[in-house]
């Protein structure tokens, strides 16, 4: 018997207005699993995550998290169920300090719990400790992304949903970020990450799906997909699988290839 699904999407269609940007998507993720959603810009990855977080209404299908139907629940209610969300563009509070931002991630907990968890975050992301009193707006891109992830972890989620965490980051910073994420997995956290940067995401996640024009076209173990020429083809204008597979192993780049 496989463990029951933590997150399950069945026939999910969603979009802006009445035009679906996501067509009948099925997806399942078990506790502690890692899944990367890769695909070109505008393929529907963010739309999929927004549908999961209730930022856009479903046009069809249903989403369950830990057995609970998410339909009709606002974003904050989904977060309270145990989904830590680091949205596209990070959505930090530019005028608030790192420490305050982290505490807000557990806003409903008593002060002692908030402080204890905040200090745990400084252990997981030691780079943030000297920046605790710095305003988020003054941080570098990599530091901001760490704060966004740490803030999402403050609510003790069972699922972490990351939307394009590598955007705007240097390859070395991306590698560092995914290394911190990998260390988190020991605690049994499940991670769903949407990435245009396929290489970094495929190296991190165990399984992956490819999103093209709002459909999930390929799925399988990340290692298998990393070597699949069709994955490269899923990116606009990229049909030369040779470049894809021959790419150097060290450091990811911002462009898919």
């Amino acid at each position: 018997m496989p463990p029951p699904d933590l997150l399950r999407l069945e026939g999910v269609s969603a979009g802006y207005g009445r035009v679906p940007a996501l067509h009948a998507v099925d997806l399942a993720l078990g506790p502690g699993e890692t899944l990367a959603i890769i695909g070109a810009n505008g393929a529907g990855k963010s739309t999929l995550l927004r549908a999961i977080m209730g930022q856009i209404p479903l046009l069809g299908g249903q989403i369950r998290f830990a057995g609970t139907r998410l339909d009709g629940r606002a974003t904050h209610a989904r977060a309270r169920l145990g989904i830590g969300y680091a949205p596209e563009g990070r959505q930090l509070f530019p005028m608030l300090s790192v420490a305050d931002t982290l505490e807000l991630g557990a806003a409903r907990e008593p002060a002692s719990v908030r402080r204890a968890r905040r200090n745990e975050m400084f252990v997981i992301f030691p780079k943030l400790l000297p920046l605790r009193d710095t305003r988020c707006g003054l941080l570098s891109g990599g530091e901001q992304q760490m704060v966004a992830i740490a803030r999402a972890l403050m609510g003790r989620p069972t699922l972490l949903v990351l939307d394009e965490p590598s955007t705007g980051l240097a390859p070395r910073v991306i590698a560092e970020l995914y290394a911190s994420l990998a260390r988190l997995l020991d605690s049994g956290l499940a991670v769903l990450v949407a990435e245009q940067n396929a290489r970094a995401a495929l190296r991190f996640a165990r399984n992956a799906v490819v999103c093209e024009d709002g459909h999930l076209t390929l799925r399988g173990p990340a290692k298998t997909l990393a070597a699949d020429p069709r994955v490269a083809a899923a990116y606009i204008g990229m049909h030369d699988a040779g470049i894809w597979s021959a790419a150097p192993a060290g450091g990811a780049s911002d462009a898919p290839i």
Partner: protein
Amino acid sequence: MLTVITLALLGLLWGGVYLLMATGLNLIYGVMKVVNLAHGDFIVLGGLLAFSLFAEAGLNPLAAFPIAALVLFGIGAGVQFGLLERITAAGSEGELRSLLATFGLSYVVANASFLVWGSQFQSVPFLEGAVQAGPIAIPAGLLAASLAAFAATLLIHLWLTTTITGKSLHATAQSALGAASCGIDVRRVRLLAFALGSAMAGGAGALVITLIPFQTSTGGELTVHAFTLIALGGLGNYAGAWLAAELLGLTEVFAQFYLGSNAAAAVIYIVFIAVLVVRPQGLLGQAGRV
């Protein structure tokens, strides 16, 4: 010299009253990006409530202050829940809708007040003597109203900057999606912000009516005053609003003394325009700041 010192003190005290008038508007704008055009009418309503409490029950304006604030808190919550939350839209579309809605609301509040209190000017007599400090005499009523206004503003500011609920207001102002990701119910935060901002208007009204008489149609003028202050200070900027309030208080008192009250009304707007020409983001303003 003595005159200048006295005028400066008067100006600074008026600044405290202006600050309370503007802080509520600033809070609402900061959290919701809604310019509440009914803010001045809320101030007048708070003042007229204090008037009735004084006339009917002999209540001291300082005792009427929390009552007016509480009543306006309830009205603000009702307006947010029943009106503004239902017409939200993204971006400039939402700003235009809320502007039109609060514009209409200002007429509703002013006319409802008219039905209750009529059109005559009302005021509440309060501490009519003067406080003598050496050779300088300060009206006791202004001193008390100003200290109460400063204290209220300071309390709200401390609450906003030190408690987790206060910080969640800042967070919602800076990124509603970021706040929702934290499990913060942003609709509740907006309700709280609008109610609190309205309560500050109501409280300010109970103090201001002891200093200048109110008529139900005074609201528009007070909205412009409060809006001038926060535009001057940088929308959503608290330190800037404080500086602007003091600047406005000083300008007004000096202009009134040396140029007369008609000229004073014009001087305030000349200063306002001058600041906007030199620093369009406000005195301490930064784009996107809250």
